[in-house]
């Protein structure tokens, strides 16, 4: 039996949930393509969490000189996405949510090659498929405390690409995973959701400032099994001076620009205490709808 929950949401979206994996999926391109994609998504999701937990010990080990000998496809996606960042402390877990979204999206595309557009949203880490003429609008939540979209990003397919597969992920100290920085939200566009997930984690960690208003605790004091072990993670951010906010954003933006130069990301949006910074291609800019109060 499937150990996960399956439901259809309004707008014929598919909801798959097991433990921390919580996927909202939409596929467009005619009913038969959509249904094929959804069936493939369900198949791919079935047993995915169990497969990951089977290698959880290794996935919680920091990446070092040798790539880890992982066997599961999703586990390998995680390690691959994080590999570029191994100079600092990182474990494949930094890309887990995005990698799950990618695995499901890959199965959907294989089963339904004529999809026009689709997304697999795993708690804010999103695998995206767009085709020419079929862009997708992604709502951006700059504050995980307010937790509502305050703008959107319109993603178009590259003109030469029949299908354009990408990923968007958001990381921040109030999010589902620990962050070592103080960014409320760092939203990253990359080639895949796993890469976006890993990069968002890295940029959010770098969006930081030493300030008495920031409260940190060792990760394992909060979660005994945390892959971040005794590294300090942010648990509260008090009022920050404009100078501290700018310093944190500058630090994060420097890291984002370096990742952009290395071709690891396509763009990033950084938010600290309602201050914004955008890095990367112009299409990856936040559009604030005029009728929405910020």
């Amino acid at each position: 039996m499937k150990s996960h929950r399956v439901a259809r949401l309004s707008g014929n979206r598919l909801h798959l949930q097991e433990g921390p994996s919580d996927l909202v999926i939409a596929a467009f391109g005619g009913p038969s393509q959509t249904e094929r994609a959804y069936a493939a998504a369900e198949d791919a999701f079935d047993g995915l969490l169990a497969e990951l937990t089977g290698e959880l010990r290794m996935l919680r080990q920091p990446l070092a000189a040798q790539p880890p000998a992982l066997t599961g496809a999703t586990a390998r996606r995680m390690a691959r996405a994080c590999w570029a960042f191994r100079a600092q402390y990182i474990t494949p877990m930094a890309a887990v949510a995005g990698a799950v979204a990618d695995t499901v999206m890959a199965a959907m595309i294989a089963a339904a090659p004529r999809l026009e557009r689709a997304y697999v949203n795993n708690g804010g880490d999103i695998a995206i498929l767009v085709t020419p003429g079929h862009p997708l609008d992604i709502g951006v939540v700059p504050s995980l405390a307010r937790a509502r979209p305050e703008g959107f990003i319109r993603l178009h397919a590259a003109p030469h690409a029949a299908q354009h597969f990408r990923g968007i992920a958001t990381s921040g100290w109030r999010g589902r995973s620990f962050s070592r920085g103080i960014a409320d939200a760092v939203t990253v566009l990359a080639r895949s959701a796993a890469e976006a997930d890993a990069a968002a984690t890295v940029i959010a960690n770098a969006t930081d400032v030493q300030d008495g208003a920031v409260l940190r605790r060792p990760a394992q004091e909060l979660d005994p099994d945390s892959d971040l072990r005794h590294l300090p993670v942010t648990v509260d951010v008090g009022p920050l001076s404009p100078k501290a906010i700018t310093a944190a954003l500058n630090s994060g933006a420097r890291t984002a620009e370096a990742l952009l130069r290395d071709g690891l990301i396509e763009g990033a949006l950084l938010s600290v205490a309602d201050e914004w910074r955008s890095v990367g291609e112009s299409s990856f800019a936040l559009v604030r709808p005029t009728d929405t109060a910020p």
Partner: protein
Amino acid sequence: MNELNPRPAHDAALAERSRKFGVSEGDDGIVRCDACPVLCRIRPGRSGACSRYANENGLLVRTDPVVLLAEAVTEGQHVVPFAENAEDWDGSVLAPERVFVTGIGSGTTYPDYKPAPFIVSSQHEGVDTVTVVTEGIFSYCGVKVKIDTDRHLGPETAAVRANGEQVGHVTTAEYGSQMLSLGGVRHLTGGSKKEGNATCEAMLKLSNGEAVELTIDGGHGVVVQAGQAPIVDGKPETRMRVGCGSATIGIFAKQWQGHVDEVIVVDDHITGVLTEHQAGRVLDMRPAGIRVRGRKSTPGRYFQVAEPGMGWGGTDITEPLSIIQKIDPAVAWPGMRLLMTSTTGEDSLYCVLDENLLPVEAEMPAVVRQVVERIGENCEPSLCTVTFVAGAGGSLRAGVTENPVLLTRSVQSGATRVTMGGAPVYVWPGGGITVMVDVLRMPKNAFGYVPTPALVAPIEFTLSRELYLASGGHADEIVPVEEVLRAHGGQARIEGGAADNPWPLRRDAL
């Protein structure tokens, strides 16, 4: 892992609720959650990776909303939409005396040596009542599926499969309906892991009102969904038969008289022949001399005229004349008008005997067609119904009282009312607490499962406070319903009670 949202009122409620749960482990108050394979170890005051389970003071709690059943103030009042948007709820809809707390989402205390998650007291018509609310893990459970069709779905006792695994069997047919018995402890845990999982999944879906595709060994495929027409080999059924062939003759004999000389109603159980039948004799009809195949039961009533199948009246017949064994030339006459019909009126044939006494199809006179159509009009729509059957006689009772046999006895005597998700149940006579419930009378998605595999279903016991205390009830755990509302109202899913359900706290029972 997340910090629990700082909502003081709700945190207090959560802590209160968590006290009822029994899972704990290790030092530092760490709790291991086994709700999913991640097996999070959760420190006090934090939630697991999924945010659905949390550790409150060293105990594991579920953060899902409990379902409150609100007695509709006016009839037809709609469900108040809920879940995440707690702020949309003004709280005013729920007057304590109109609220019944269901077991859905209340969590379970399996193996139940702790008091059930909610023991709620409320005043009803001046009588102090107690409702014990819990979600039970039912290892012994099954579903009985009633499929309104005469079509042969498969031989009695044949295996019923879902995803290739046996999940039950065909059981005794009822009047106009085929019956399947699915689930049960032998398929859930007595066979292979695969069989258990397929069984659990099929039962869970059926109980939550979803469609399930089943196949029957030596029979056919049927898609079953509570409250929907069965789909047999891809074809939706529309009508139940009006009765067996003999009953159909009995009902319509008088309307045929004078318009036809003989009527044969083809049915898998009893095929009726009008002029031989008691009804034809009473009407003084002339014997027609047509002998049908099969085993004669009483005059004009024949068993086994054909094999069961997907043809006329649940037989394998597609050429109705083939059931005529012989036509007696000494009795029959040329020009005799013969009508053959199925018990649903879906199939019919009108013939006139030629000079060689051979039936020749002819246009059916309007007056005869009208009666055939009336058979159809008198058929009820064909539906599937799903009845969940489970035994609550085990350790679940310990969550209700310290002296479980007293609970059993008070349920058996009717003093304690049992509901499931607020829906009425039938309590089987005899030992234990074995209950049956129509899943369509329960709120949506009332069922869950545990990987054992076993189903999780809500169950509530309602009785007077006096009786509860006399039965060894957990007196210290009783909370007024107002308090549950205060604590959980903002988080709960609130639904109006199903219109045709009696209110769970029936006045006359208390």
